[in-house]
């Protein structure tokens, strides 16, 4: 089942991959990707309901005109999803992992835990601006939006900035170790996040077992 949620002028597709009771899980896809149609194998063991959100410009969500993508706007997407599902564990691939971390810092009471997985868009644009891409890109208005690929692929993630979200998540969450790094990619910002007390490296399966207990 898919419902559409309004985030400013964008309609976001929220897919229910598994309906049910028990703890909720919100899956965030990678850059250029879309939500899966079925529960991925690695989430089969999750004991509750599973939802997946298509970010702005991706999957079945609105592809807006003229770009202007930021990770912070996508955090807003994920937060609108979270408002619809209720408090949930967030699992994010690549860009979705980064967005999940931002959301865990901003909504520590509603994100039970975030598991960051490898995938496209995890690295972003690094610490400092590089050569700026300012002209338009062809093929806009079809998903995935080429503006999203360019702008979110080069979106800056200064270590101190990202680290702050991890600190907010670990300090304000009522749960222990709410940030789990479950992949092998280590962009500079993720190395900085791993230095924050309370952030853990562990296999996805272990993280999900812990987070499921949080309800």
């Amino acid at each position: 089942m898919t419902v559409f949620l309004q985030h400013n002028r964008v309609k976001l597709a929220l897919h229910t991959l598994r309906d049910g009771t028990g703890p909720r899980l919100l899956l965030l896809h990678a850059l250029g990707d879309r939500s899966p149609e079925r529960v991925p194998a690695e989430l089969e063991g999750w004991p509750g309901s599973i939802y997946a959100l298509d970010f702005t410009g991706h999957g079945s969500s609105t592809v807006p005109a003229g770009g202007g993508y930021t990770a912070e706007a996508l955090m807003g997407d994920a937060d609108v999803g979270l408002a619809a599902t209720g408090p949930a564990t967030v699992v994010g691939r690549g860009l979705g992992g980064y967005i999940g971390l931002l959301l865990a810092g901003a909504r520590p009471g509603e994100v039970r835990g975030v598991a960051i997985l490898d995938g496209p868009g995890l690295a972003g644009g690094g610490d400092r601006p590089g050569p700026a891409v300012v002209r338009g890109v062809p093929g806009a208005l079809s998903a995935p939006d080429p503006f999203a690929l360019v702008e979110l692929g080069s979106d800056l993630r200064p270590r101190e900035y990202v680290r702050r979200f991890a600190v907010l998540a670990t300090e304000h969450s009522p749960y222990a170790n709410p940030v789990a790094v479950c992949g092998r990619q280590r962009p500079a910002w993720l190395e900085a996040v791993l230095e924050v007390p309370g952030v853990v490296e562990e296999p996805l399966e272990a993280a999900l077992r812990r987070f499921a207990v949080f309800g």
Partner: protein
Amino acid sequence: MTAPVAEEPRFLTYPGARRPARHRWVDSYGVRLHVCEWGDADGPPLFLVHGGSDFAGTFDVFAPLLADAGWRVISWDHRGHGDSDHAALYSWDADVRDALSVLDSTTPDAVPVVAHSKGGGMMLQLAEALPYRLSKLVVVDGLPSRDPAPDVSDHEHRKFTQKTLAEWLDHRRAAHINLRKPGTLEELARRRKRMNPRLSDDWLRYLVTIGARRDPDGWRWKLDPAIRFGGFGPWSPEWSLQRLKGLKVPLLGLTATVEEEMGWGTNHRALLPYLPPQAEIIPFENTGHFIHIEHPHRVAELVLEFLR
């Protein structure tokens, strides 16, 4: 665009102010931008760039002074501002891309640009990305040296708390139903006064007739309610400072000396290590952030001399 308002005729004029001679629209990849022009359509183009939360109509006194000297003066409302489209997404990069769309709609040649506040930072980025596109650059209180710059929204600040993040997200959750607060023309002018305390009441009332629209329940600023003043995001003045070092075009920087809510608090001495050799910085004594509104004739003289 706002139609003339018969009920408020006394605020439709302001000494020295002149509405643009021409209006046109530019499609920036699906976002419609409102473009204003003053002066002879065959004159050499000169671009004016407004700052955050502003609109092209704020140049109604300054632009005619340049137009009367023979320039074809062109400005535009940034996406979400003035009469331009409210967009789904806003970012610094999108603003720079929109700027290029307006330049491209006018001429492929290198052009001089006068940019205020956030517009100055945008033009420093454009000058780095496409150095051939600008011939000369004037930045009016928009050179960085303070963090954060107050009129830069959402994506561009680094300091934040869990509370500010939650408030920002709450705002986003309701963005699709939010409207700007209505009020009388006087009330809107008073609200603006809090941000622009040095500008005259008559000028602010005049601005309301351009930058606001009249709904059945009162006047509302046209600025997209999804755009929030202040915010957070990975932005550092250091990035713009580094850009300054590599700037190849002549640069004239005018800096304010009186701190204001919307001002950038630029310390011109702190800028010195970053300036390219062809730069000139002129501090304006006892002047706030809107230097070109407080001293339109003096700024126009300096700009015309610089462009000569």
